[in-house]
């Protein structure tokens, strides 16, 4: 089942299924390789809805909590 990226626990991985947002945001995320079909691993998150750090390809990217909650991820069963 797809869950928001912000809900993932550290070290959980999955495949992005949907991204909700305006064209500008999709463009910004897309340029960093955050697109549907892409595999992501959550690395860490900060307290109090702080930024989420994820691994995409070989780069680590930090994104705001709200942004992350608009990215849906089909989480791998085995890592749950």
């Amino acid at each position, binding site marked *: 089942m797809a869950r928001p990226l912000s809900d993932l626990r550290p070290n959980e991985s999955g495949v992005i299924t949907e991204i909700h947002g305006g064209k500008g945001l999709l463009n910004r995320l897309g*340029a960093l390789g955050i697109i549907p079909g892409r595999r992501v691993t959550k690395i860490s998150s900060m307290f109090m809805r702080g*930024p989420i750090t994820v691994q995409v390809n070989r780069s680590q990217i930090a994104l705001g*909590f709200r942004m992350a909650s608009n990215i849906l991820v089909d989480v791998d069963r085995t890592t749950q």
Partner: protein
Amino acid sequence: MKILLMGNPNVGKSVIFSRLTGVHVISSNYPGTTVGYTRGHMRVNGNPAEVIDVPGTYTLEPTSEAEEVAARMLPTGDVIVNVVDATNLERNLYLTLQILEHEKPVIIALNLWDDTKHRGIDINVDKLQELLGVPVIPTSALTGQGIRDLVKNISEAASPHLPPQTLGERWKLVGNIIDQVQRISHRHHTWYERLEDASAKPLSGGVIAAIVLIASFMAIRFIGENLITYVFDPIFEVFLKPVLLHLSTQMGGTGFFHDVIIGKMIGGDIHFVESFGLLSSGLYVPFAMVLPYVISFYFVLGLLEDIGYLPRLAILLDTTMHRLGLHGFAIVPTLLGFGCNVPAVLATRVLESKRERFIAATLVSIAIPCASAQAMIFGLVGPFGGQYVLIVYGTLFTVWIVTGVALNRILKGFSPELLIEIPPYRFPPWRTIFQKLVMRIRSFLIEAVPIILAAVLVINILFVMGVFDFIADITAPVITGVLGLPKESVTAVVIGFLRKDAALGMLALSTLSAKQMVIGSVVLTMFFPCIATFVVLLKELGLRDFLKSATIMLLSSLAVGGLLNVIL
């Protein structure tokens, strides 16, 4: 010939730039923007060529001002050197494909090549070259490996005439290419990869941040103080003073012009801090008090920047900074402010929106005491006991939070969310660090010094004409009534318009109680920036926002001072 260096941020583009060009590089602002870029010169097959270090970008469909500048610069180049991070080929190729869609001759510098081996990455360069249709040269800018090859092959740059594609199509093509050229074998984490992870996690990251910040402050104070004591002070005392004293006698030692140009004689001597003449304090303030800290701050900041630590600090502090209407990256100007508010206000340019720049600049000028203000706080309040120093700092910190939260509520708009890449730690070559340092100092001298001098001149004239005594007279009821300070300190507070530390120094002359010292220090720190910050603030914010900012400072310092007078 015009050569553009283009690539993602953090791929070692500026290191390649400094390898290609000589020492003489120029940094400028792209017309109509706050985005800076650097250019320099090199020779290609004996012919002179201009090299431009285009701001790093992830895409040519711009998502920020810096990216817009990059997109606008692309058509002006004759040859594009696309700098690609070999350890992160997949993400970098997205921009490469976009560039290849532009019918410009392109050559690729596959940088950080030496890093690929110990990261277990194997790239088939010939195959990559064949698939992209442009020359690909492996480089390691840190060691200089491959740079000569790159220069030799610039004339081989080619355009494969790639048709325009959509975002999805491009990523699909990138995936295809990666499948054919790259093999990755699993490697164990190295010790600094572990350090990378630790510094981006809440708890361990917090500890690391504290250590890094404390070490940075110590380094900055150490370098700054030593520059003042052993370099700048001697220059002024040994070389400038005799000249000024001679000039002073020639001008009769007193009078309007004498006081404006040389300053008031104090005990028959020129005092560089208190004389306040155009050629005494006017030169001393920017060169001997601000410049040393600008140098040491930019040095340490450049180091943290190039190592790749700042994005980690930004995510650690993002939550807090958001409450203040800023995002994590605003921590950079804030930190700078502890050394000197001038570069701090200049550094607010890195923030995306006008709203953020306004909040950040106002908060810095209100609540961040610069190094010389801090020295005075310790000197004046310290003797009464450490708890009073803590009260001063605690009050300023509270003011920082409260003002930020208030501005965030009141001002229209919202603070943009953080979206940044966290680069791996890298140790940059000294050459690049010093090149950047020289460039930043030069732009500080060009941008800030002339206006500081002009402002000192104008205020000097007003001061000598007695305008400030007049202000002191009419503001006296407020200062004695609301703040509970004695009448003598009125002049000190008014002098605070001009010079924070001189004003605090004047407070030291009158006998104040601990409470009065605390109030005096807090009010003087908050109520107005020093003359140098004042002009830079005006220049950066524009008149209207500057007036808003100044009003906030005046009102909040009176409110806080009055409150302290009641509470303490």
